[in-house]
């Protein structure tokens, strides 16, 4: 549609009853580019002049190109996050722990194959070997071979299984300490920070905040958002700090754990307001394939007056941390909501409840290929929303196996340690996709939550949690006066160049100046369509490219002068001047482009801004310096008449 309009415009200009076909083609092209440039800049002008150059709504809504002032010009928010790299190290250690336990099960408990050993085998293993992953030392695994067992099985072959990352220390004949090597640890740390930066950047980008800059310093991630919009700052804070760790864990609804707890607990040991409740839960199928139901007890902690639901969650968690769940089980927490209004599905958060989960996550976020917010087909017609997940091949086959083995049981979808939902497995699910239903029943909240979940799942989980460590609202880093001076310097430099060209080349100088102004205009339009932010170095780059962009015209004009001197007619001289100068122009600008591209790769922040402006400037200046001036030159030569001469000063 848009392209069609442009083509129509192009042909309209092509039809002007003046000049030869070549000229008309150029004229039409220049005009179309100019109009596109204007449309791209229109909304920015509107904003900059506070509505005096008003831009029609139609264009404002469709053109999202905006040129915004950078952090150094208008200030903004600077957020510093610290990556909890110790957590990344611990994760790595934990995955080695799993692996080592499997290998030990092979050596001491007759385990076979690469699957995780079963519960039975593990308890058999526990009688023979203790393997420990201490919480206080996040990079070590301790191994103790119990009396009567053959400790010589922990030999070089075993150590070599974990060779590149782990090193072994023999504490005694039966005790071994495996720890992550210093070099491996520092590479885990570096990688965690780099990955976290990438993911934060992706999240910020997908929120449409192109002007935000993300950089790292040691173990800190620095996010700089220009502007003063508190609402968008809040959104950024929320989206960035979500770890987005997604896990699927099976529920254990047959364990009498909470029931026993209820009988044993005295009110003093329980958090204020905690009650035990019972619900009916699906607990699998019997041999005949009939679905079974069972009563299961859980703890429920309602939010007390003057408390946020987050505080309730923390209270419940604190209490749960004092409990000792059965082996290989853990406690999960889910937000409980109450329907307030039947008709609008409005609801309120009333508290948190527990679930007893299997400790091992069957499916984790890295097995997800894609996530997409989608309306709920099976919903009651109220326009519910959920997130459609598609698994990777590995994730899909695991999901198929798990659902096949656990028909009519519940599993928990856990996001950042909170249980989002606990759907019942109705049948074996193959095809590698699943769906997360949002906990809330209010469709607008569902939509909002699913969009957010989609965003964080797509941008990937953070390799380690990040915690905000510093936050600063910063004013413009340069005083108003130095900005004014910088802009004045740029303006003065630009004016000097324009004046100089007129003095030196007269009419041809005016033509070159018009081209330079169009160049400036186009550069701004291109930068706006990148959503670039205008920083002071950026303005410097702009002025500098003005100085350079006359280069093409100097080359051409000098050439035309030479041709005129050789006695060529005005028309031929212009023709030859342009064609002969072209290769020099392209060579010269391309080499500048190479240097600018390297600069853009290397630089961060303001330097990158400068490099991008330089690249855009160089590209635009070839267009304006060659194409635009040519159109004007031809008008001039034609109006000068057939036999009259032209003078280039």
């Amino acid at each position: 549609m848009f392209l069609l309009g442009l083509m129509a415009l192009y042909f309209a200009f092509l039809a002007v009853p003046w000049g030869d076909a070549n000229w008309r083609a150029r004229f039409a092209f220049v005009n179309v580019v100019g109009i596109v440039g204007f449309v791209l800049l229109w909304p920015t002008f509107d904003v900059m002049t506070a509505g005096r150059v008003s831009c029609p709504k139609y264009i404002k809504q469709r053109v999202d190109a905006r040129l915004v002032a950078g952090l150094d010009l208008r200030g903004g928010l600077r957020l510093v996050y610290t990556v909890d790299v110790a957590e990344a190290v611990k994760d790595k250690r934990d995955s080695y722990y799993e692996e080592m336990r499997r290998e030990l099960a092979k050596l001491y408990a007759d385990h076979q194959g690469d699957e995780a050993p079963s519960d039975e085998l593990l308890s058999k293993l526990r009688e023979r070997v203790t393997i420990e992953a201490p919480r206080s030392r996040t990079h070590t695994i301790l191994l103790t071979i119990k009396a009567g067992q053959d400790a010589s099985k922990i030999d070089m072959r075993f150590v070599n299984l974990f060779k590149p990352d782990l090193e072994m220390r023999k504490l005694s004949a039966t005790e071994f300490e495996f720890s992550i090597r210093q070099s491996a640890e520092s590479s885990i740390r570096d990688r965690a920070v780099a990955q976290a930066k990438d993911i934060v950047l992706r999240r910020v980008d997908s929120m449409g905040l192109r002007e935000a800059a993300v950089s790292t310093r040691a173990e800190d991630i620095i996010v700089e958002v220009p502007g003063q919009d508190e609402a968008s700052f809040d959104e950024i804070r929320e989206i960035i700090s979500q770890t987005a760790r997604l896990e699927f864990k099976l529920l254990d609804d047959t364990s009498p754990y909470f029931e026993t707890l209820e009988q044993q607990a005295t009110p003093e040991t329980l958090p204020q307001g905690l009650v035990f409740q019972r619900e009916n839960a699906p607990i699998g199928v019997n041999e005949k394939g009939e679905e079974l139901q069972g009563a299961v007890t859980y703890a429920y902690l309602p939010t007390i007056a003057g408390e946020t639901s987050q505080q309730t969650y923390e209270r419940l968690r604190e209490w749960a941390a004092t409990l000792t769940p059965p082996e290989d089980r853990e406690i999960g927490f889910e937000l409980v909501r109450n329907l307030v209004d039947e008709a609008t599905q409005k609801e309120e958060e009333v508290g948190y409840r527990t679930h007893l989960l299997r400790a091992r996550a069957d499916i984790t976020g890295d097995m997800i290929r894609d996530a997409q917010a989608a309306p709920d087909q099976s919903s009651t017609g109220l326009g519910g929303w959920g997130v459609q997940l598609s698994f990777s091949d590995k994730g899909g086959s695991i999901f198929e196996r798990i659902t096949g083995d656990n028909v009519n049981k519940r599993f928990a979808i856990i996001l950042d340690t909170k249980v989002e939902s606990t759907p019942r497995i109705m049948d074996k699910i193959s095809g590698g996709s699943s769906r997360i239903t949002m906990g809330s029943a209010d469709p607008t909240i569902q939509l909002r939550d699913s969009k957010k979940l989609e965003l964080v799942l797509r941008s990937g989980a953070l390799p380690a949690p990040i915690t905000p460590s510093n936050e600063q609202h910063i004013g413009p880093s340069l005083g108003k006066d130095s900005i004014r001076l910088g802009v004045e310097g740029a303006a003065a430099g630009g004016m000097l160049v324009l004046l100089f060209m007129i003095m030196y080349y007269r009419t041809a100088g005016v033509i070159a100046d018009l081209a330079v102004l169009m160049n400036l205009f186009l550069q701004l339009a291109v930068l706006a369509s990148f959503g670039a932010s205008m920083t002071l170095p950026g303005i410097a780059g702009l002025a500098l490219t003005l100085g350079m962009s006359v280069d093409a015209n100097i080359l051409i004009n000098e050439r035309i002068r030479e041709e005129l001197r050789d006695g060529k007619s005005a028309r031929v001289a212009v023709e030859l001047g342009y064609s002969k100068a072209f290769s020099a122009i392209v060579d010269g600008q391309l080499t500048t482009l190479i240097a600018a591209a390297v600069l853009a790769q290397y630089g961060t922040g303001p330097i990158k801004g400068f490099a991008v402006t330089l690249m855009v400037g160089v590209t635009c200046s070839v267009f304006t310096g060659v194409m635009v001036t040519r159109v004007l030159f031809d008008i001039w030569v034609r109006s000068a008449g057939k036999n009259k001469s032209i003078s280039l000063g």
Partner: protein
Amino acid sequence: MQLFPIGRVYDFTSRRGLFMGISLVLTLGSFVLLFFPGPRLGTDFRGGTEVEVAFTERVTPAQVEAAVMKGDFSRPDVIRVEDPKNPHRFLIRVQEISTITDQQQLEIEKRLCLGEEKPQGCEHHGLEVKFSPGGEKISVRFEEPPDLSWVRAQFAGLSGIKLRAGASNPTVIDERDHRVEIQLTSRGDQLMDALRAGLAAGVVPDQALRTEWIGPKAGAQLRDAAVKSIVISLVFIMAYVAFRFDLRFAPGGVLALVHDAVVTVGVLIVLGREINLTTVAAILTIIGFSVNDTVVVFDRVRENLAKLRGASFDKLINVSLSEMLSRTILTSSTVIMVLLCFFIWGTGTLRDFALTLIIGMVLGVYSSIYVALPLTEYLDRKFFSTVKKKAVART
């Protein structure tokens, strides 16, 4: 208007020896300067602590320097920052950054009762201690809710480590994990203290305008990346010239660029300017501009090759250079005009950037006239003399 008489051919090549000699001396001299005394690297590259302070009354840089050095710091850079709102604004930069040595870390871990053996007097057991890379924060996870005054007491008498004053230090940042954060006085705080001690009362404000630190590791990484990016752009440009013209044009052109970049840095060292990220940006821009000049002349040589059949390479170069002389001077002067405006009006970084570029642009014009072409001719004669004049132009 016409800068140079038309048709006049200047002789650039006859005094080739002299100019190449000068350039050689300049380049070698700059190389020597690079190592002795070596460039004054900015905080970007060297790492260090940087504080900007707006003093309430007039102080001289010498007073500031003396006060800082009395506070056990290395010789600081004291730079007056022009700011109409704060007339006494200074940028003070020292090499020291806050780091906690491994030994100190071990000592702290011991005092917080980390690890297996539990010494006497341990009321709480730390599970994990984390030191912030800036050396201004320590966070500790405890097994049980800790007594903050006990934590505070553990830091008493540790040399070189001081807790920042304030009632909420240390503070519990995570109830569930019993995580405690201890704020230490950073180098920035110490610097401010030194200023307060060394200058008249009431001159030093409570807060610095800005405190910034860069670790030495990050600085070294940036420095390596800077060198790498300059080398990469040289390689790319060389490849482009070789592809567009002829392999034998490339060494002359690139050596001219190396000359420009190295001598610019040399001049900056002589002027006592500091080398930072902005300088690297300026040098890369210079490389881009300078090769532009050289390439445009190469282009003319290629064209004249066909026109002036049988002429010596010497003459070819002189004719081409003379023909392009007005263009070279004109283009460079327009750019230099803009840069001069920035130099005159601009402040701070922008001004330094303009200065570096002006030096580089002037050198670029000189080198494309007196270095690139004569060198190309010299190399041509020396190494390609058998195929001389033939096949210079391929495209």
